């Protein structure tokens, strides 16, 4: 039976995050934390493989204790085990440090045949985790995977489609293999009542810096990160264009058409 790892992240719904125009800082209060959307696609891809070939699925995340919620979502649609990595020592980790910690914590339930990640997150959006996790696991890598066509367990190979800029590649890869999953063909399923109920009471395996065996403290958190964010600032808002206000939507629409005609665009 295939052993599968699905890596997920809880993210703020960035479309609802606003910036304080005075302080320039982000207003996070009241913004819901959600399962990173593409991680939902990754989870769905893993569940489809499990349905077709048989598999044990471990879902893993790193984050604050509340990130447990996204693991319960994974459990509700087919994950067999969930691992929460949480410790203040992991704070401010970039992808270099995070991929190290996630791979270390996942080892306990490995080795894995297949590892699934979303293509990128809504918040950090670096899209680097998949490639760096593949490096930690020493696995083959297929990024932007849009469809898993076939898995040959006897030969330890699989065939997958990859969504490229100008078309679709068909790629054969050796197992173990890590995929970053595209949204296209893996719309997440809605959990049924039974799944939801089971997920609510399922045990979550929790690991901290001191309970992950062999963790090198110099490679975690801010100190283990390759990158830092020394400062942030609000995007410069350009000078506003000419505001059209003719008193009604009807007249405003007509005014645009007039401008288009004057500039020779129609």
């Amino acid at each position, binding site marked *: 039976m295939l052993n599968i790892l699905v890596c997920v992240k809880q993210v703020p719904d*960035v*479309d609802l*995050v606003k*910036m304080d125009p005075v302080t320039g800082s*982000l207003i996070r209060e009241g913004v819901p934390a959600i399962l990173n*959307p593409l991680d939902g696609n990754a989870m769905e891809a893993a569940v489809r493989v499990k349905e077709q070939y048989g598999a044990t699925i471990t879902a893993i995340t790193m984050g604050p204790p509340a990130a447990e919620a996204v693991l319960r979502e994974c459990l509700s649609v087919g994950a067999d085990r969930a691992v929460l990595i949480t410790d203040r020592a992991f704070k401010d980790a*970039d*992808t*270099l440090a995070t991929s190290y910690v996630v791979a270390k914590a996942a080892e306990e339930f490995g080795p894995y045949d297949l590892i699934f990640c979303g293509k990128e997150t809504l*918040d950090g959006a*670096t*899209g*680097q985790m998949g*490639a*760096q996790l*593949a*490096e*930690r696991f020493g696995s*083959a*890598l297929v*990024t932007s995977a849009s469809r898993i066509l076939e898995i040959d367990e006897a030969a330890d190979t699989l*065939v997958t489609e*990859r969504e*490229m*800029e100008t*078309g*679709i*590649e*068909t*790629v*054969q890869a050796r197992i173990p*293999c890590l995929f970053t999953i595209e*949204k296209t063909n893996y719309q997440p399923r809605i959990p049924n009542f039974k799944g939801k109920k089971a997920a609510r009471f399922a045990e979550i395996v929790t690991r901290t810096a001191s309970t992950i065996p062999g963790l090198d403290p110099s490679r975690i958190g801010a100190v283990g*990160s*390759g*990158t*830092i964010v*020394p*400062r*942030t*600032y*609000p*995007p*410069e808002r350009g000078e506003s*264009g*000419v*505001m*059209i206000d003719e008193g009604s939507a*009807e*007249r*405003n*629409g*007509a005014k*645009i*058409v*007039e*401008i288009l*005609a004057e*500039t020779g*665009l129609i």
Partner: protein
Amino acid sequence: MEKSAYKNMWVYIEHDGKRAHPVGLELCCEVRKLCDVTGDKLVAVLVEGLPEEELAKIRACGIDQLLVVSGTGYEAYSNDAYSNLFTVLCRKYNPSAVFVGGTINGRDFAPRFAARLNTGCTSDATELVYNPESGDIEFIEPAVGGKMMAVITVPVLRPQVGTIRPGTFRYEPTGEKPAVEVLHETVDFPVADIRTKLLGFVPDDADADLDLANTDVIVCLGNGLSGPDKLPKYRELAALLGGKIACTRPLFDRGILPFKLQIGQSGVMVKPKLYIGFGISGAINHTAGFAGSGLSIAVNTDPEAPIFGAVDYGIVGDMDEVCDAMLAALKAR
């Protein structure tokens, strides 16, 4: 090793044996400016097989060195061979920075070799600034969906690795240097160790509606769109103006329009003669995608929406009503 011991900035030139991908040339032009400040050499790194006229385009960007790689394992792109190649080359030459075009394949191998070298990797910077005090490059990029700009640096480790999206910088060659040094390296990667194999490639259907790159007029729809039932009027408007409809990320996320129609840094970068945005808040990720357009117009209910700072004309109002009014006015002509 002290970070000051790492010298020179590299740009990887992705190519298909016929043409260099434009992003490599764009990066050479931009990194040239950094090297002029730091005194580093600008090195273009590529796998052999590019015709002379394409090499001339790279030289025209003012590179100091051309590092040409030969060896086994590079006939088709693979994560294994390219991750190994840059690990080997960086260990030998110790560059200060490595820039890789943020194509799907560039984003596939750059983070991996960065992790193998145990160094920092950034993605999608829209601005590169050298900080003489720290000696680090500041990779400046939109963050949290474009709600803020983040400065990212690699303060201790080297090389500083960055992937940059195609179209972020301009190809404005400053001219060939009198002496461009050409270095040759052979790095063999055993073909048997490549764990992925390309079996086939099917180009996307040439669906004209999905090709935004050469479109003069774009009617772009944002999260303000109430639902797919409202699409027909915008399609009609686009058709009357001789253009096509496009969207921002939330509409793709909502499953209303396909990814190929997403304008912005992670989607398509466009420069139409006319851009009209409806119901778009104007996150920098999106506005960067149509910068340089001819005439730009935005309609949004929120007078504070950042989109109004990125367009020539703005209208505060209901997008559907303004669209209806435009349709009526166009038909009355």
